[in-house]
């Protein structure tokens, strides 16, 4: 083969390994911000690819595959890993070289995976990651012997300190040329006896190559004694979630004020320099006010994701699933549903996608159906606005903010209703057994700041692009609807009453009047179907445009003077349940490959929303808040 040509052409390398092996940290360390997240063709598993350039100037394309214990795929995620390695994925060539990432302190299970990889016939490098921890524990690994036994070159790495990366890349690149260790693919799905004999072989290799640690990790055990204590563990989990939501509120305020002030100043500046009239109104009221009212919630969304990433990276998330399994099982949900449902607090879309780790169909569908009841970050703008306008900024019991408490209550009603709905689904429709629950509890680690920041940056990018691509055009549409047609000569009411927006709002209003909605609220629901937070921007636009003096009053001040408390609470109740998110419904369609489930979801959520808002409104009115 022509060595020179092989050196010049870009090579494809795939990272494979057990969950919690630090595979993604290694991927981040190797590619930095030069990565692209997309979906595999035809399936919705996230495809993470990054690019790096070797010292020799060669381009390497790195693929980060979902973590797995075996090539015997059980969930859609693991199917992707298997098919990518075997080169069976549509539109994807098999990788030239594999990097098998192992947690150096936990080699047994990955050695069996490595033996499976050997059968695939692709050359691979075994990366012993987190080697510094192994050294600290006094774990002695005979690297030369291990390399001979496994039949693959070995590199020790510390992804978080970027140690061993150059050597890893050099070895992997060399394999793309020499193909040493490669051969025919003889892999097929192993049966129980074959897994046993592979285990025995892995165990033998482990015994001859690894001396047990002199100072084994005892910290994880000590932490677990507290965090997995039956009673205290649940209390700590509840406290953690509570602190998380309080933080979302209090920490974000300065940054939000800054963004808010920035956009107000920008709108003022534009207003002063542009001629009064259509263009000025379009830019100040349509574009700037619309985008500003959504971007202002970026700090809160980032704080929420920050907590979720910390919990994931530290190893706590699996403990949370352990603690919650029985409670969720009582509601007919699988313990594994905890992570999709927790992700749904940020956004139901990644949450619904991550249900792919649940392979039982009924377990998975139940989780998908209730995931949107978790309070996603797109509801935060709506909740914040209404709470800020109607709930006084007082402190209860000396240290709790009343506003934070109401927010907690909204989150809690989302969780409780999700459990109730899944309970009903399980009792009425799908009786029967739930999927086995088996999950590794990884060693606790300090989250790596660089990793957390890279992931946070990816989230921020997604949110901002979304604000730009979906929300901005909608804002323009809303501005058009709210501006045209002009009121007739001699009209007495505000101009917006005569616009398309006013007409449309007037049509739905009778339907929503029983739950206390006025036409501005009614119209906010229509573009709010695109994304929940758009409702805030719509209210901003609708009220800014209808402001007779043209002065920019704070939206919350406007609302508190225009809405009754009962209407505001009813609006909140609506938003706990309503399926105000077309992208979620689209994802459900894609994940279930049927229109049936998005339809079921839409109908049951609208019904719940209407009932909840109706009850809330009438109770509040009866209590004198009308």
């Amino acid at each position: 083969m022509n060595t020179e040509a092989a050196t010049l052409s870009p090579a494809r390398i795939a990272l494979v390994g057990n969950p919690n092996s630090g595979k993604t940290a290694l991927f981040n360390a190797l590619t930095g911000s030069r990565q692209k997240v997309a979906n595999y063709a035809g399936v919705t598993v996230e495809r993470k690819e990054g690019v790096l350039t070797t010292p020799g100037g060669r381009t390497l394309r790195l693929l980060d595959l979902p973590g797995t214990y075996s090539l015997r795929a059980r969930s859609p995620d693991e199917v992707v890993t298997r098919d990518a390695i075997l080169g069976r994925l549509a539109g994807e060539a098999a990788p030239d070289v594999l990097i098998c990432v192992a947690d150096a302190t936990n080699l047994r299970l990955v050695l069996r995976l490595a033996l499976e990889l050997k059968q695939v016939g692709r050359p691979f490098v075994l990366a012993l990651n987190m080697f510094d921890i192994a050294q600290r524990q006094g774990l002695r690994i005979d690297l030369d012997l291990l390399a001979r036994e496994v039949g693959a070159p070995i590199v020790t790495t510390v992804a978080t300190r970027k140690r061993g990366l150059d050597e890893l890349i050099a070895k992997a690149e060399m394999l793309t040329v020499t193909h040493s260790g490669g051969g025919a693919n003889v892999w097929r799905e192993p049966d129980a006896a074959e897994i046993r004999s592979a285990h025995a072989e892995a165990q033998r290799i482990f015994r001859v190559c690894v001396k047990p640690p002199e100072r084994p990790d005892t910290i994880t055990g000590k932490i677990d004694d507290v965090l997995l204590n039956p009673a205290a563990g649940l209390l700590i989990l509840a406290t953690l979630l509570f602190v998380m939501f309080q933080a979302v509120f209090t920490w974000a305020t300065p940054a939000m004020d800054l963004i808010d002030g920035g956009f107000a100043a920008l709108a003022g500046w534009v207003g002063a320099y542009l001629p009064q009239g259509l263009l000025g109104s379009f830019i100040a009221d349509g574009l700037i006010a619309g985008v500003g009212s959504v971007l202002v919630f970026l700090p809160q969304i980032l704080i929420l994701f920050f907590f979720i990433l910390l919990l994931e990276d530290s190893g706590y998330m699996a403990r949370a699933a352990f603690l919650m399994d029985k409670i969720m099982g009582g509601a007919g949900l699988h313990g594994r549903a905890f992570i999709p449902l927790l992700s749904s607090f940020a956004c139901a879309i990644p949450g619904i996608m991550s249900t792919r780790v649940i392979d039982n169909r009924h377990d998975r569908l139940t989780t998908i159906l209730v995931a949107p009841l978790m309070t996603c970050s797109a509801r935060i703008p709506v909740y914040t606005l209404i709470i800020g306008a109607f709930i006084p900024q007082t402190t209860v019991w000396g240290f709790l903010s009343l506003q934070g408490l109401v927010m907690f209550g909204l989150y809690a009603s989302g969780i409780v209703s999700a459990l109730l709905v899944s309970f009903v689904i399980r009792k009425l429709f799908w009786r029967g057994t739930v999927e086995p629950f088996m999950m590794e509890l990884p060693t606790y680690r300090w989250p790596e700041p660089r990793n957390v920041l890279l992931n946070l940056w990816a989230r921020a990018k997604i949110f901002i692009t979304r604000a730009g691509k979906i929300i901005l055009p909608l804002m323009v549409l809303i501005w058009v609807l709210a501006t045209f047609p002009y009121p007739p000569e001699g009209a007495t009411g505000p101009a917006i009453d005569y616009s398309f927006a006013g007409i449309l709002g007037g049509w739905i209003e009778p339907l929503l009047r029983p739950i206390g909605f006025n036409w501005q609220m009614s119209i906010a629901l229509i573009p709010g179907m695109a994304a929940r937070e758009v409702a805030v921007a719509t209210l901003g636009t609708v009220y800014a445009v209808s402001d007779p003096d043209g002065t920019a009053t704070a939206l919350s001040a406007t609302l508190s003077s225009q809405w009754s408390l009962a209407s505001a609470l009813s609006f909140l109740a609506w938003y706990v349940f309503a399926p105000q998110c077309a992208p979620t419904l689209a994802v459900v369609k894609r994940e279930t490959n049927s229109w049936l489930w998005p339809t079921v979801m839409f109908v049951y959520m609208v019904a719940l929303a209407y009932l909840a808002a109706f009850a809330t409104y009438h109770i509040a009115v009866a209590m004198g808040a009308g």
Partner: protein
Amino acid sequence: MSDGLALVSSLDAALADTAGERSLSLASRGDRGVIVKVTGVTGADESVATDELERRLLEMGFVEGARIEVLHEGLFGRDPIAVRVDDTRVALRRREAGAVTVKFDGIQS
């Protein structure tokens, strides 16, 4: 007898054997031993085939000869349990633990 016995099905109890060999589903926190048998049969209705459950257990490290220790128990019905299998910590329900037989060290109360 441990109070755990009251919680388990008659089939689990039937699996309880002499010579300290018992189903993992009966174990209490602190129990240690060596896995002597892994099957896919739990004695309850499972949503996956017995052969599939057996392979999953094996892949997570539940294999004959592995050292096992029960580290933690959940609050409700002492379920699920967290165990150490050799060097790996794994959480699983008592139900699925029914497919694993362990020879426990010493005399179990």
